[in-house]
C-alpha cells in the first residue's frame, strides 16, 4: 500500500513537471501582417544609424553614457536608429526605463515637421542578464510603440509561437513602392552544447516566419537589410579572408573589398544548420548588420558563390566605452539609402564607420 502511494506521488510530480514545462508552448498565433511595420517616406534620402553593444549596467555612469550617445545621435541626425543588441548587461528596471526615456526624448527633440526620427531595437546575448523578468524590455518598448505619433518602431507578442523577442520587419516605402525592407531579428543568447554554453543562432522557426512574410509580399523588388546581434558563419569566412590577406582571390567565398577593421576572431553561434545567410539572401537581403564582436567593425563586400550577388557583411561600431573595447574605434555606423535608386546593388560607399573619441 505504501509503495503504491509513493509511486503515485512520484508519477504525479513527474507529470506535473512535464505539464508545466510543456505549457510553455501554449501560445497564440498572430497574423503575419502584425509583424510588418511600414514607413511611407517623402524624402528619398534615408539614413540609418546603427548603435550596438552599449552595455549599460549597474556600474555605468548613465549621465556620461547618455551625453556621448546624444552627441553622436545629433551629429548623425538619422531617420532611424537601429540598436543591434547588448544594450544592457547586469542591469535593472530603472536603468532600462532611463535608457528608453532618454532615447525616446532624444528622437522626439530631434524630429522636425519634415523629418521624424525613429528608433528600433533587437536583442543581444546579454540583454536579459539583469534584475528584471525577461519580457520587461519588450513590455517597455511595446508601451512606447503603442503611443500616438510614436517614434518607436517595435512589435512583439509575448505568447507567440516564435523563439526570440524580436521577429518583425520595417518596410521603407517611397511613392507607394516598397524600396527597402529591414529585418529586425533576435539571434537569441546562449545554447547548452556539450558541457559549455555556445552562442545561439537565428532559429529555423524564425527564418520560416520571415520567409512567410516574404511570400506574403506582392512587391518583391526591394533590397533587404538584416539587423541581428550574433554574427553568421559567413562573417567568419570574411574575417579569415581579410586577415589572411586573401582578398580578391579566385575562389569562393570571396571578399572583394572592405573598410574598417577585423581585430578579433568572429564568434558565431553554435551551428549553421539553419542556413540563415542563404535563406535571408533568398529574401532579398543584401546587407547584413551584426554586433557582438566589439573589436571588429569591418564592412566587407562579400560574394559567397558565383551564382550569388555581392552582399555587405557589416560589423557594428561599438557605441560606448563599456566593457572590452578599442579606445580608438568607438562611435556608430551610418547607412545611407537612396530610395530613388532603382539599381538593386549594394555598395560599400553607402556605409560609413564614424569614430568619436569618448573623452571629448
Amino acid at each position: 500500500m505504501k509503495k503504491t502511494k509513493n509511486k503515485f506521488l512520484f508519477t504525479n510530480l513527474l507529470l506535473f513537471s512535464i505539464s508545466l514545462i510543456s505549457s510553455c508552448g501554449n501560445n497564440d498565433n498572430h497574423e503575419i501582417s502584425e509583424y510588418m511595420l511600414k514607413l511611407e517616406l517623402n524624402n528619398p534620402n534615408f539614413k540609418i544609424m546603427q548603435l550596438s553593444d552599449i552595455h549599460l549596467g549597474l556600474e555605468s555612469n548613465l549621465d556620461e553614457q547618455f551625453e556621448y550617445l546624444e552627441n553622436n545621435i545629433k551629429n548623425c541626425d538619422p531617420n532611424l536608429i537601429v540598436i543591434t543588441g547588448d544594450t544592457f548587461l547586469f542591469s535593472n528596471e530603472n536603468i532600462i526605463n532611463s535608457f528608453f526615456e532618454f532615447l525616446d526624448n532624444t528622437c522626439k527633440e530631434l524630429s522636425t515637421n519634415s523629418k521624424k526620427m525613429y528608433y528600433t531595437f533587437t536583442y543581444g546575448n546579454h540583454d536579459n542578464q539583469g534584475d528584471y523578468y525577461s519580457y520587461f524590455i519588450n513590455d517597455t518598448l511595446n508601451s512606447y510603440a503603442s503611443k500616438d505619433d510614436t517614434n518607436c518602431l517595435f512589435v512583439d507578442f509575448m505568447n507567440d509561437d516564435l523563439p526570440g523577442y524580436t521577429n518583425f520587419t520595417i518596410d521603407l516605402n517611397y511613392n507607394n513602392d516598397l524600396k527597402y525592407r529591414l529585418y529586425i531579428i533576435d539571434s537569441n543568447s546562449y545554447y547548452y552544447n556539450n558541457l559549455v554554453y555556445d552562442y545561439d543562432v537565428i532559429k529555423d522557426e524564425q527564418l520560416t516566419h520571415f520567409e512567410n512574410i516574404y511570400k506574403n509580399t506582392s512587391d518583391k523588388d526591394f533590397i533587404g537589410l538584416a539587423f541581428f546581434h550574433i554574427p553568421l558563419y559567413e562573417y567568419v569566412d570574411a574575417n579569415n579572408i581579410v586577415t589572411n590577406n586573401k582578398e580578391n582571390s579566385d575562389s569562393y567565398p570571396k571578399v572583394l573589398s572592405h573598410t574598417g577593421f577585423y581585430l578579433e576572431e568572429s564568434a558565431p553561434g553554435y551551428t549553421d544548420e539553419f542556413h540563415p545567410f542563404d535563406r535571408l539572401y533568398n529574401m532579398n537581403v543584401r546587407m547584413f548588420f551584426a554586433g557582438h564582436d566589439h573589436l571588429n567593425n569591418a564592412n566587407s563586400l562579400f560574394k559567397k558563390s558565383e551564382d550569388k550577388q555581392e552582399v555587405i557583411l557589416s560589423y557594428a561600431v561599438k557605441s560606448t566605452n563599456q566593457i572590452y573595447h578599442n579606445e580608438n574605434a568607438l562611435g556608430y555606423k551610418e547607412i545611407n539609402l537612396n530610395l530613388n535608386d532603382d539599381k538593386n546593388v549594394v555598395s560599400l560607399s553607402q556605409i560609413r564607420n564614424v569614430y568619436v573619441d569618448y573623452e571629448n
Partner: protein
Amino acid sequence: MKTSKKDLTFIFGIEIILLILLTISIYNLLKMATVYITSHYQNTIPVIGSVIMYLMPIVFYIFHIKRSKHKEFSKIGAIIYVSITSILILTGLIMILMSFNYFWNNNNNGNYVNFGFLPLPIDMIIYSVIMLLLNVSLIYKTFKNNEKLNYYYELFNAYDVISYKTFNIIFSIILLLISGCYFGMFFASFNSLKNVLINANYIFLIFAVLIPFYNIIYFTYNYFKNKTYKSNLIYTIITISLNFLFLIIFLILELTSPNFVVQVGKPLFLIDFALSIPVGSYILVFDLLFTLIISVISLVKLIRSKKSSNKIEESTNN
C-alpha cells in the same frame, strides 16, 4: 554561567539575521565582482565601498559562530574586533555616501533592495546599521558579563567520514559560502518572478537554486544541543529526502529541457554566462550528490552505532 532561554533565542535570532544578510551579501559580492571585472574596473570608490559592505556580514557571521560556538571574546579581543569592523563599516559607508552622484546617475539603489526612491544602495545602509548595533551590543555584553557564557554547541558529526578537524572546518566554510551564494540567488530570483508567465520552468529554477538549502539546515541543526538518536535520525532522513526531491526536479529539468538554465537562469547564473561554462549547474550537481552520499553514510553509521550500543547494553544487562 548557564545561558538563559531568552539569551539563546536572542543569539539564534541574530544568527538567522546574519545568515540571511550573509546569503544576500555573498551573491551580491559575486555579482559586484563580475560586473566590476567585466566593466574594466570602473568606479572603484563606490565598488570598494560596496565590497566592504558585502564582506562585513560574512566576517560578522564567522566571528559570531566563533564566539558562540568555540570561544567568547576577551575584553581586549572584543575591543579590537569592534574597532576594526566599525572602522571598516564606517569607511565603506563614507565611500558610498561620497559616491552619491554615481548612485544617483546610474540608478543604482542597491542590488537587492531596490526601492527606487533614494539614490543610494539602501540594503548596504541597512547592513551597516545592523552591524554597528551588533558591535554596540557585543561591547555591552562583554563588559557587563565577566563570566564566560556557556553557549550551546554540539556538532552532529554528519561529516565524520572526514575525520580531520581543520579540513572539516575549511570544508564547512566552503559549503557555507556556496550555499549562501545560492540562497542569495533564491532571494534575487523573486525580482524576476514574472518570468513564470513566459516560461514555467522559471518556478523550478527557484527549486534548483534551493539545492544547497540542505547545507543551511546542516549549519542550523548544529546549533541545537542535546541531540538524541531520534533527532539525528529525523535530521538525516529530512536531508536525504530533500536532496532526493531536489535531485529529481533537477534531473527532470536537465533531461527534458537541457537549455533550461539558459532560458530562465541568465540573471542568476552570473559566472556561467561570463565564462560560457555552466559552472553553477556543475556546483549544484556536485553539492547534491556529495551531500546525498554523506547523508546516506551518516544514516548507515547512525543505525549501526545504535545497534552496537544496543548490543553492548544487552550484554551488560545479561
